[in-house]
């Protein structure tokens, strides 16, 4: 700056020019861009460079590790922590959507108190703490209760200490999907209070009795990964999976065989299998089976066949397969089968594993049970006490009993009688709207915390950014109250802050993991890797005497009524995800319905009752009734109907309120024999005569013989002679023409490479998707929403086919009439065609071909003729029918502060523009720049697309097709590989690997 332009002046000029540009920009139709002034730069933050923090996902109790990407001080994406012992770098949809919990526009912005007129008004934190202190000073300790969700870490201990300080021991943990049945069954069969740990990866044969282990049960991401590693076709081998459930769930859709027994008889089928194995001495049991004799004798295949509707031959065959194709694994009693006889179902699976010798091989037992026990009976105790006026102060944290309980329990009414109710919820949920004092907690991404989902795994959460709202961590509030109240509470809880309290706890954890380094070193390392873990010795178990006393109490729906399955939605779980627009818009993996509830009815039953799809059906049980549209689902027994849980909120924010119906209303409040809520009910159906168009993304569920989602059977795949769909033959272009086409393309590439920055491009990006690994879980879809700033459009627009999901999971049905029903998933995204139909038709070159093989789309240049969309045979181009990007517009997709989650590397598209998948071109370019900076070439696998990175079953592989050594090149040459609609000669860069079904030849 020798010519007198010093730094100060330079910045001044820069500022003025920037303002001028902004003022000018105000006149145009484009949205105004705001610049971020970094006059005083924040240390360790470089604009444009991401910082990654390790943390733990708290969307369900599984405890997956996160890497949170933070840009300019705000979290913009979560990814799985690759070094994590639970999820190995993979995440599900709900974890991906945790950002929408953080930035949810319906979060409670600060502490609120109910005033004399019954309205909420803001209050200062200090005043709020003083109010609690004074209330606690007035009441007896036994009248103070604390209700939480599932907490396994330091926070749980803090609550105990806090309550003890005030003379109370009334801490209740309620988790709607507890594992009471499994826990009880384990106690019955093996006499231990522990939860089993299943090694799906080691199992070659898996049989599931209703367990939705790829959706919500136990640890779905970990199980998805393990299951696909054990089951998917590789090197001429594959596992086999049989699903036994009256309804074909998403998990069941990955099965090689679906067996649909009468609702409630799954356990009997398992026992009959065990009977055959013991009778015929098919396997070496894990121990003595003498005590089981009486139980097994009452479950001979012939008897069970009559009860369950499963032919005796099938049971015998399954038993022989199960015993001979080991190592095998039986899992059961998941929330998908939580009926009155669930305890037996779970016990039966234990017994089956035991008699086959799987215990100790694919099934082991944790040293302690850390997963939720459920606590429904505890909750009932609280409700009874509250109804009787025995509760004067109630703290609620992480639980929503006013919504997630059967109405017959009367939780909402009972809680209303409590004179002082404090909610720590982040959202105005059903329980919180009835509270007296609302002290919103930090989001899990804003707080210090830890959890311990299983023995030996200590997982740490750290704040990744400044809190979005004026919230305060509940633990800090409790510490504040304790210190203000004095007495025993203040003596016990002396920590300045929860962070200190947590660190103190981690000093003890350091001891238990046997780390002898200075604490600070240990602590920093834990923060970096997301926690500390060590191998724990698994408990050895043997059959307990009580196993003989396992009672079989058949659960059946009375004559003339249907058995209802109220199953947990794979996307909302128990309803806590319902206020995330990404999850609302995510099509249910099975039905492909968004933004609503539905009742699944078999087409034959529907025809008999005169019900058509979309007819509003009143479902009535003894407990209550709901009215939901009918969805005709061939994957359900004709005598069974199913409704997902998780919708039908009466509060909980704009995205959840009044969407669908709450299936808890159909469930009985009376606890089942194992102590939890029964998720089965006997219901009657009535067509109300009203009708609505279901908001589903599915067009035609049958692929009309077009070979879109191809599959073959294992015998064929193993022999190496895979028959391609006949469509593939149509692709045979005459050699002469093919040579010509190749020449033209090569010439084009040469041309591009010699010009400008394209000179460096030598890659041809491609993808391989293994359909025998895809479970349809749709995590990739949500990851794509998060990475690429896809707007959500709402129910009405989904009805009109205008969802913007660049990645969609197509679900096709095969068979179902004469042959067994088979479901196939196909992730459909832009195929990045080498000979793309979309490109030549664009009159303004908005759609163009990049030198590295991508179908580029210049949003800025697009005028919106939509010709490309018409000409795309895969229908993967999405048009902005409305303006999702205009703040203030009714169609704005990211109401403040949701817009903070937008990925700064990706343009937000305005109305009238076509958009599409670009293989995450921002990631490709980012990694290319990194490689150029460090001066070494890109390594295979270095670039990961968002869908690939999150995929819990490693179905997606991305890389350079020009590099013959890359994984994707090898997969593209796989004998199972095919391109969708190959006959059109579009030359896609995406290769699909046929699904392989391990079926038994009839």
């Amino acid at each position, binding site marked *: 700056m020798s010519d007198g332009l010093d730094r100060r002046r330079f910045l001044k000029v820069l500022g003025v020019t920037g303002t001028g540009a902004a003022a000018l920009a105000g006149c145009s139709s484009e949205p105004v861009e705001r610049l971020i002034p970094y006059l005083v730069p924040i240390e360790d933050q470089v604009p444009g460079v991401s910082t990654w923090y390790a943390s733990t996902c708290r969307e369900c109790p599984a405890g997956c590790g996160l890497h949170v990407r933070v840009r300019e001080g705000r979290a913009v994406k979560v990814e799985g922590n690759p070094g994590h012992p639970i999820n190995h770098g993979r995440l599900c949809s709900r974890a991906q959507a945790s950002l929408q919990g953080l930035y949810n526009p319906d979060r409670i912005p600060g502490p609120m108190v109910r005033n004399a007129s019954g309205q909420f008004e803001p209050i200062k934190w200090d005043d709020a703490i003083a109010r609690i202190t004074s209330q606690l000073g007035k009441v007896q300790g036994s009248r103070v209760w604390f209700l939480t969700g599932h907490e396994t870490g330091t926070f749980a201990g803090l609550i105990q200490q806090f309550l003890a300080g005030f003379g109370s021991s009334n801490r209740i943990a309620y988790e709607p999907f507890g594992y009471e049945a499994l826990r009880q069954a384990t106690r019955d069969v093996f006499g231990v209070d522990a939860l089993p740990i299943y090694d799906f990866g080691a199992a070659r044969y898996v049989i599931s009795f209703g367990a939705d282990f790829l959706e919500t049960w136990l640890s779905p991401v970990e199980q998805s990964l393990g299951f696909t590693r054990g089951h998917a076709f590789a090197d001429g081998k594959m596992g086999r999976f049989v699903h036994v459930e009256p309804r074909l769930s998403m998990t069941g859709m990955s099965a090689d065989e679906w067996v649909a027994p009468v609702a409630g008889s799954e356990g009997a089928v398992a026992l009959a299998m065990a009977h055959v194995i013991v009778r015929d001495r098919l396997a070496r049991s894990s121990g003595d089976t003498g005590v089981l004799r009486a139980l097994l004798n009452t479950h001979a295949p012939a008897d069970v066949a009559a009860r369950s509707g499963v032919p005796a031959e099938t049971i015998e065959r399954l038993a022989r397969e199960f015993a001979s194709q080991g190592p095998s694994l039986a899992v059961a009693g998941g929330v998908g089968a939580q009926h009155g006889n669930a305890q037996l179902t779970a016990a039966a699976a234990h017994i089956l594993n035991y008699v086959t010798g799987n215990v100790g091989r694919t099934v082991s037992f944790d040293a302690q049970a850390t997963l939720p026990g459920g606590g429904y009976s505890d909750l009932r105790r609280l409700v009874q006490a509250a109804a009787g006026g025995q509760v004067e102060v109630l703290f609620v944290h992480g639980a929503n009993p006013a919504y997630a309980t059967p109405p017959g329990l009367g939780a909402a009414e009972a809680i209303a009688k409590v004179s002082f109710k404090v909610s720590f919820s982040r959202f105005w949920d059903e329980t919180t709207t009835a509270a007296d004092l609302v002290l919103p907690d930090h989001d899990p991404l804003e707080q210090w915390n830890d959890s311990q989902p299983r023995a030996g795994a200590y997982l740490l959460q750290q704040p990744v950014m400044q809190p979005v709202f004026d919230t305060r961590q509940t633990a800090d509030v409790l510490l504040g109250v304790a210190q203000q109240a004095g007495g025993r509470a203040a003596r016990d809880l002396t920590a300045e802050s929860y962070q200190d309290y947590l660190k103190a706890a981690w000093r003890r954890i350091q001891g238990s993991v046997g780390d002898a380094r200075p604490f600070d070193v240990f602590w920093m390392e834990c923060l970096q890797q997301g926690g500390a873990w060590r191998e724990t010795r698994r408990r050895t178990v043997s059959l307990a005497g009580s196993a003989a006393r396992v009672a079989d109490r058949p659960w059946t729906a009375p004559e003339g009524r249907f058995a209802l399955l109220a199953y947990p939605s794979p996307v909302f779980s128990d309803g806590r995800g319902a206020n995330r627009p990404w999850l609302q818009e995510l099509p249910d993996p099975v039905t492909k319905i968004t933004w609503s509830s539905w009742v699944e009815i078999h087409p034959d039953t529907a025809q008999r009752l005169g019900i058509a799809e979309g007819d509003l059906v009143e479902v009535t049980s003894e407990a209550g009734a709901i009215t939901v549209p009918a969805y005709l689902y061939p994957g359900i027994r004709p005598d069974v109907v199913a409704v997902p849980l998780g919708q039908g909120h009466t509060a909980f924010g704009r995205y959840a309120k009044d969407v669908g119906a709450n299936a808890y209303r159909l469930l009985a409040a009376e606890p089942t024999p194992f102590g939890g809520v029964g998720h089965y009910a006997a219901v009657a159906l009535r067509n109300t005569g009203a009708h609505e168009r279901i908001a589903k993304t599915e067009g035609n569920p049958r692929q009309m013989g077009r070979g*879109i989602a191809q599959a073959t059977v294992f015998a064929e795949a193993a022999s190496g002679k895979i028959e391609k769909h006949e469509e593939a033959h149509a692709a045979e272009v005459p050699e002469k023409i093919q040579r010509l086409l190749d020449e033209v393309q090569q010439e084009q590439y040469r041309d591009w490479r010699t010009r400008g920055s394209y000179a460096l491009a030598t890659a041809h990006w491609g993808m391989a998707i293994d359909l025998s690994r895809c479970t349809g879980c749709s995590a990739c879809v949500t990851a794509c929403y998060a990475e690429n700033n896809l707007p959500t459009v709402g129910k009405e627009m989904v009805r009109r086919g205008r969802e913007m999901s660049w990645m969609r999971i197509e679900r096709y049905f095969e068979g179902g009439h004469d042959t067994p029903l088979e479901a196939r998933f196909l992730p459909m995204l832009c195929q990045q065609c080498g000979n793309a139909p979309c490109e030549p038709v664009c009159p303004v070159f908005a759609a163009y071909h990049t030198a590295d093989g991508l179908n580029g789309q210049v949003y800025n240049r697009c005028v919106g003729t939509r010709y490309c969309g018409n000409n795309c045979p895969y229908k993967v181009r999405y048009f902005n029918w409305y303006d999702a990007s205009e703040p203030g517009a009714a169609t704005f997709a990211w109401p403040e502060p949701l817009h903070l989650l937008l990925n700064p590397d990706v343009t937000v598209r305005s109305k009238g523009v076509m958009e599409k998948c670009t293989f995450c071109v921002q990631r490709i370019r980012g990694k290319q720049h990194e490689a150029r900076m460090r001066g070494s070439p890109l390594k295979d696998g270095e670039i990961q697309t968002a869908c690939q990175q999150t995929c819990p079953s490693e179905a997606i592989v991305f890389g350079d097709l020009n590099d013959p050594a890359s994984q994707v090149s090898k997969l593209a040459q796989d004998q199972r590989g095919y391109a969708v609609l190959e006959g059109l000669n579009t030359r896609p860069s995406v290769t699909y690997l046929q699904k392989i079904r391990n079926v038994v030849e009839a």
Partner: protein
Amino acid sequence: MATLTEPHAPTHVARPTYGEITRDVAATLGHPGRSYYVLLGIVLFVLACGIGALLYQIKLGLGVAGYQPPVMWAVYITDFVFWVGIAHCGTLISAILYLFRSAWRTAVYRTAEAMTVFAVMTAGLFPVVHLGRLWYAYWLFPYPNQRQLWPNFKSPLLWDVFAVSTYFTVSTLFLIVGLVPDVASIRDRAAGWRQKLYRITSLGWRGTDVQWRHYTRAYLYLAALATPLVLSVHSVVSWDFAMSIVPGWHTTIFAPYFVAGAIYSGCAMVVTLLVPLRSVFKLERYIHEEHFDNLGKVILLTGTIVGYAYFVEYFIAWYSGSSFEREAFWFRAFGSYWWATWTMIICNAFLSQLLWFPKIRRSIPSMFVISLFVNLGMWFERFVIIVVSLSHEFEPFAMDHYTPRWVDWTITAGSFAWFFMWFLLFAKNFPTVSLTEVKEIIPMPRKGAARS
């Protein structure tokens, strides 16, 4: 002209004299009566509604229309092709029939030409109306710009831009040139602002011998220039579809099929316009059954070609062996849009066959009714080709059903209003029957009786 005596010359109407012709035709420029203003009022109101709907659509986005992906083109492109099709008859009647020396064209060609220009003006709106960002419509033109961006000449949409704008230019020129002598003759009768208008548009016409010589020569050249356009414009429009890979679009028959369809619908629209025009402006002496008879023959011929094309489409779909084609055509006939397809087939392929009967051709009411059905059928033809093909493409999971919404309908109605507004204004202010050419075909007045 070739024949001064026509074999089917009407006998029930006395032959007008030159003076009567000028008087009768120029009478249309006088006070047209209340019904005219009522009609104009209705048209302007509907147009205002259409403009309102368009502004609403621009403000909120194309989402307000019924679009249901994968149907990304719908009623607007249907309207576009419909109006481009309508535009064809004008050039056919004025240029091709002129070159073939068909005398009967003289009474109707002005109407047809005006219709052409206004139909192109209407059609030209739709590619803009349907754009996602219509404020950038000018990016489709190859204009020099700082960014050195050039449109993609591979895209059929760009060909459209050139085809339609060329056609508009030539057909407008043709209309204006044809008007020159007529305007000159009414210039001398008009007063006030009209006289000024006519003075400008008559381009200093005085009717000298030299002017006439140049004029007829120019007219002939323009006719020769316009003739290939009749074939080219709709061929290019058809390539919007034929060049794509959509089953039901991607077929080689499209260009001739579209051209025949265009002439078919254009002639029908001429009939639709002539019938009320004739009675409102009392032109029965100039436009009579003879003309309808001839138009009827053209409609019959082109309608039969269109019907044949329908048959061939189905045949090829079967013969191709492609399951996509077969299923697309099966869906057309028996899928969720069967009603649209059968409306199209019945109106176009079957109703036009009634015109084999001279009685029907020469009955003005029946011609009028048939012409309305043909217009309806041809609108549905484009709807079926565009919407039904798109809703049933390659990817079964992405198939969906489109239904137009009020915005689509209002803008469509507005386009009719826009067209009729121009036509009504034209009919009021310019001679709708060619004075000079009608005079050319009546016998030269001589002393005593005419020779023949």
